[in-house]
């Protein structure tokens, strides 16, 4: 099998990289692809918690790189989907424990077994970031509709291009339709105009994300009409399927109702 590897990155912290990896990975697995998630945030691992797999970790990515175990031994099978795996980060080490060339060969090995390898990048532009992008075939950048997050996304796009990862695409996370319509939030057009890259998805702000992260159950598992559907759509687009963007206004049943009434 010759799979594809993608890195989810952002520059700024707290914009939703890990949540995006967990949900896109799970959504791809739900579409019957064989998927491996890699947590490249060594020392600050989170992906295992968001996936609800924390208590199954025996070996981690540093053990693999240092030959303390075989790659297969470190892979944790997801408790819900047998074709979804997690390669966790080490918590007691730091970013220098892995080198970009080691990461590259690790991802190459995984691509032989998997359809998709999804790499969760740490925040920042230092070694952790360089490790995370080393093995990636393409990159998705997560940003929120904030000036600072967009600024960092722009920086990251520049760095990715310098590293030869051409044409990264962007996911705009946590957009609040109401605030956008009031003009209190950057709108999608503004963001795309600055970044000048393809839009891969729009994820509406949804409180259920916090609940699902805390429970270790990615939101795509539930029949969630907002964020869940948005992540499923992104996963479909990754596989090459064409999916229309959810219109922000259509998201809420009530806005629809309001619209109908406003005509009468």
């Amino acid at each position: 099998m010759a799979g594809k590897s993608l890195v989810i990155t952002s520059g700024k912290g707290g914009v939703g990289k890990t949540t995006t990896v967990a949900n896109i990975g799970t959504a791809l697995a739900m579409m019957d692809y064989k998927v491996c998630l890699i947590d490249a945030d060594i020392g600050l691992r989170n992906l295992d918690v968001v996936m609800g797999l924390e208590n199954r970790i025996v070996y981690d990515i540093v053990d693999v790189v240092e030959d303390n175990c075989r790659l297969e031994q470190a892979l944790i099978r997801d408790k819900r989907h047998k074709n979804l795996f997690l390669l966790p980060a080490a918590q007691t080490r730091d970013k220098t424990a892995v080198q970009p060339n080691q990461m590259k060969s690790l991802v190459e090995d995984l691509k032989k077994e998997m359809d998709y390898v999804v790499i969760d990048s740490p925040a920042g532009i230092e070694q952790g970031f360089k490790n995370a992008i080393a093995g990636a075939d393409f990159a998705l950048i997560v940003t929120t509709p904030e000036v600072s997050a967009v600024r960092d996304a722009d920086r990251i796009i520049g760095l990715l291009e310098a590293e030869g990862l051409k044409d990264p695409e962007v996911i705009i996370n946590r957009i609040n339709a109401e605030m956008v319509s009031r003009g209190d939030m950057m709108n999608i057009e503004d963001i795309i105009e600055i970044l000048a890259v393809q839009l891969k998805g729009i994820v509406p702000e949804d409180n259920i994300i916090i609940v699902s992260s805390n429970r270790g159950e990615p939101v795509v598992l539930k029949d969630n009409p907002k964020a869940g559907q948005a992540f499923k759509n992104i996963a479909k687009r990754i596989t090459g399927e064409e999916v229309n963007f959810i219109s922000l206004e259509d998201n809420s049943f009530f806005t629809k109702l309001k619209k109908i009434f406003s005509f009468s």
Partner: protein
Amino acid sequence: MKSPISFKVAKNGIVLKLDPNAEFNRIKNALRDHVTSATNFYAGADLYINIADNSFKIDQLNEIVNIARGYKDVKNIIFTSDVIKKDTIEINNEGETYLINRTLRSGQKVKKSGNVVIIGDINPGAEVIAGGDIIVFGKIRGVVHAGAGGSTEASVTALKLEPTQLRISKKIARPPEESKNRKSLNPERAFIQDGQIMVENFEI
């Protein structure tokens, strides 16, 4: 003697203007010199040759095109005969001019002793420092510094001038706090007059 070739900023890009009063051989040699000394000048960009006031024989045009092909990675060579307006900015032929054919993103920095021409935007967080002029076929939203060596003659021109900070020579200016109309392009040029940075609308 004044060089028989010059470069001007026009609507579509950088236009090569040939002096109608110069003999063909001088034009040819000047162009050949520029091709050798500034090979990357048109890399990835279109080269417009303005022949409005000239009369050339077909094989002379051929010769010009053949020399111009020597610019590394030049995209298309296009002849135009649009009359170039008098007040069009002339790219100072003296210092070297660097052409950058992409958008500068946050964290990227360009520092050149000559003029800098950018086909693309300068995003917030990006920085351009030039000894001479800065001309941007796009939006300036980052920090620009023209005449960084102290030249008060330097200017900054862009299709949209919305810099975080604009410096010319030793003067520093910030844009007004209220945001401008974000959508429309409004070519503007900043320069020093009476010891102050002035901005004027600019038609190209």
